[in-house]
C-alpha cells in the first residue's frame, strides 16, 4: 500500500525526522490561507502517488500569494499520469545547500533490510543502482538488533564529512529504520534529504510504501489508504478477498492461483489476444466468490469474452461451476464464457454446466484459442 507524501511526512514527524513547515490543502482557499501562514516563496506540490510529478508540472514555486493561488488552481485541476490531483502540499521553500538520497528496503536476496545512501539527491535510485551501483552505499541492519549505532554512523559519514551532519544523518537513519520495522514498511525513502542554509538536515520529500501483509497489525496505517485514488474495482476485489488488476485488453480471465493467472494472461497474449485483467480467485473458492469475481470483471466494459481457467486442487470445480451458474442468473451476463475446469470434481462441474451455454475446453491452450475465436 502506498501513501501520499503528506501522510508519509506526518509519520516522519511522529518519529522525530525533521520536515519543512508545510500544510496539506484540498482547495484553492486552503492554499491561500496556508501560503499566508507558511509565508512566500512557498512550494505547491501535487499529492499523487506516482513518480515524475515535477516533470509533469505538479510542483511549482510560488513567489507570492497571487502565484500560490494561480498554481493551486492549475495543479488542483490537473491529471498526472491519468491520476487527478485532489490535494496539494504547501511547503516552506527551503534554501538547499546540499542534496542526498536515503532509503530503506528489504533485500530479498540477502533476506535483510538494507539502508541505501547516495550522494546525489532527487535521483531515481533504481536507475542509479543499474547504471552506477558503486554510487550507492549500502548497510545491512542486523535482523534482530536493528540498525546499530555504528551502522547508522557509517551511513552518515558516507554522506557528510562534517561529523555534526554525519551524526544528525545517523540519527535520521535510525528513525527511518524504526518506521520501517515498527510499521511494516516495504520502502521508506527521503529523496532528497537536504541541508538548508543554516546547516540543518531536512527531509524535503518523503515516501513510504507498506507491506500489505503487515497492515492487519497497523489499523492507523491501513486507515491512511486513499480510496479515491485507487481503482474502485481493485478496491472492491480486495474487500472480496480476490486479487484483481485491470489491464487494457478484452479477454477477461478468471483463474485460481496467482502464478496460473499470470500464465493465463501470458497465454492469451501468446496466441495473439489481449488479456483484460489479472484475477486470482484464490484457493478455496465458494460459488459466491466466483460470482463476485465475475461482477468485478464485468465492470470493465472492454471485456468481450470471459475465460475461466481452473486447475482444481483445493479449489473444487463444482463450486466454480455453481458460481458461474449463479452469476449468469443474477448478473445477466451477455459475454460468451469459455470454461476450462480440470482437477477436483471436474465431472460434477461438467454435469452442472452442460446446459449453461458455455464453450468448453480441456486444456488451457485450447481455452485461450477458443476465447480468441469468440472475439471475431
Amino acid at each position, binding site marked *: 500500500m502506498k501513501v501520499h507524501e503528506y501522510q508519509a511526512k506526518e509519520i516522519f514527524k511522529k518519529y522525530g525526522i525533521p520536515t519543512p513547515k508545510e500544510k496539506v490543502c484540498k482547495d484553492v482557499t486552503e492554499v491561500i490561507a496556508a501560503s499566508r501562514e507558511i509565508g512566500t516563496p512557498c512550494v505547491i506540490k501535487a499529492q499523487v502517488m506516482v513518480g515524475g510529478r515535477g516533470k509533469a508540472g505538479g510542483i511549482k514555486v510560488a513567489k507570492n500569494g497571487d502565484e500560490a493561488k494561480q498554481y493551486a488552481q492549475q495543479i488542483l485541476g490537473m491529471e498526472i499520469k491519468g491520476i487527478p490531483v485532489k490535494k496539494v502540499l504547501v511547503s516552506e521553500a527551503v534554501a538547499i545547500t546540499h542534496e542526498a538520497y536515503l532509503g530503506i528496503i528489504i533485500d530479498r536476496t540477502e533476506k535483510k533490510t538494507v539502508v541505501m545512501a547516495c550522494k546525489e539527491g532527487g535521483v531515481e535510485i533504481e536507475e542509479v543502482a543499474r547504471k552506477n551501483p558503486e554510487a550507492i552505499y549500502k548497510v545491512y541492519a542486523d535482523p*534482530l538488533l536493528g540498525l546499530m549505532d555504528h551502522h547508522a554512523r557509517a551511513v552518515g559519514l558516507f554522506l557528510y564529512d562534517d561529523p555534526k551532519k554525519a551524526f544528525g544523518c545517523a540519527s535520521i537513519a535510525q528513525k527511518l529504520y524504526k518506521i520501517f520495522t515498527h510499521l*511494516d514498511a516495504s520502502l521508506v525513502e527521503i529523496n532528497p534529504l537536504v541541508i538548508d542554509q543554516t546547516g540543518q538536515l531536512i527531509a524535503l520529500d518523503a515516501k513510504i510504501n507498506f507491506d500489505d501483509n503487515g497492515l492487519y497489525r497497523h489499523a492507523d496505517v491501513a486507515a491512511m489508504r486513499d480510496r479515491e485514488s485507487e481503482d474502485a474495482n481493485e478496491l472492491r476485489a480486495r474487500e472480496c478477498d480476490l486479487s484483481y488488476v485491470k489491464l487494457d485488453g478484452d479477454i477477461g480471465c478468471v483463474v485460481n492461483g496467482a502464478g496460473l493467472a*499470470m500464465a493465463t494472461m501470458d497465454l492469451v497474449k501468446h496466441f495473439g489476444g489481449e488479456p483484460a485483467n489479472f484475477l486470482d480467485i484464490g484457493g478455496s473458492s465458494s460459488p459466491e466468490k466466483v460470482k463476485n469475481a465475475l461482477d468485478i470483471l464485468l465492470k470493465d466494459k472492454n471485456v468481450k469474452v470471459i475465460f475461466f481457467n481452473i486447475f482444481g486442487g483445493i479449489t473444487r470445480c463444482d463450486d466454480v461451476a455453481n458460481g458461474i451458474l449463479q452469476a449468469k442468473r443474477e448478473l445477466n451476463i451477455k459475454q460468451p464464457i469459455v470454461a476450462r475446469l*480440470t482437477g477436483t470434481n471436474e465431472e460434477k462441474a461438467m454435469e452442472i454446466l452442460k446446459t449453461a451455454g458455455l464453450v468448453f475446453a480441456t*486444456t*488451457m491452450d485450447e481455452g485461450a484459442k477458443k476465447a480468441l475465436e469468440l472475439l471475431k
Partner: protein
Amino acid sequence: MSILVDKNTKLLVQGITGRDGSFHTRQMLNYGTTVVAGVTPGKGGVEVEGVPVFNSVAEAVKKTHANTSIIFVPAQFAASAVYEAIDGGIKLIVCVSEGIPTIELVKITAYMKDKNCRLIGPNSPGLVSAGDAKVGILPGHIFKKGSVGVISRSGTLTYEIVDHITKVGLGQSTCIGIGGDPIIGTKFIDCLELFAHDKETAAVVVVGEIGGRDEQDTAVYVKKHFKKPVFGFIAGKTAPPDKRMGHAGAIISGTSGTAAEKIKVFKECGIKVGDTPAEVAQLVKSTVKD
C-alpha cells in the same frame, strides 16, 4: 530416491484442528504420508483423522519423533508456529500460511542460522516426492514417479506444468513449491543443490515469475555449477509494473524483476525456456527419457 521428503518423513501438522489442517491431513494420509502428530495449543488429547493432537511441538516431537512439520495456522500466528517448530527440533518446516509480514521472515531467517533446520515457504503449496510422500496441498493424483525435479514459486501453475509432464509420459522425483513471498526459507538454488546429489533426478524444471532476482541468480548458478539439464518457465510476461500480482513477491519494481529480463538471463545461461506450460513439457520430453 528423491529430496527433502520420502518414506522416512514423520510429519507433524501444526494447526491440525483447523479447517485446512484437518482436510489436508486426510489428503496427505491418503497419499501415503506418515502423519504422526498434530499440534493445536489447548487442544492436546484429541485426535484428528486418527492422528494424536498435542499442546506443543516439543511434546509432539518427544512423543512421536516427528522430523518434519507443515504449518496451516492463520498468518498472524504463523511466524510464532515456525519458531516453535525450530525450537522443537523439527528439521524440515513447510509453511503453507499466506500473509506473514515480510519483516517476520527477516527475523526467522536470522534465528534459523546455524540451527540445522530448513524452512520451505511461507506461502508454499508444499512438496511431493512422487509415490513416497506428500507434504502440502498439491493434488496428489497428478504426480507420477519419475526423474524430473520441479521447483516453483507458484501453486496451481505448478500443477498445470506437472500435469503436462505426466501427460507426455514422464514422471517426477520431487516437486517443490517454494512459495510466493518476497523472502522464503528455501530458494531455487537451495533445491538445485539437493537435486544435484539426487541420483533419481535426471532434469529439473524451474518455474519462476516476476519480482525479485532469484531466477537470475539461479540461472548463473546453473551455468556455473549444475550439470543436469534445466528447463524454465516464467509467468507474468504481460504483468504491468508496480502492481502486486497476487503473490506478495510478484511485483515488478524497476526493470530487474520483469519476465523479459528473467527469460533473457535463463537463455543466456543455457536454460531452455518454454513459452507455455505445454511447451515446457515438450522441451523436457525431447531431452529426458524416463
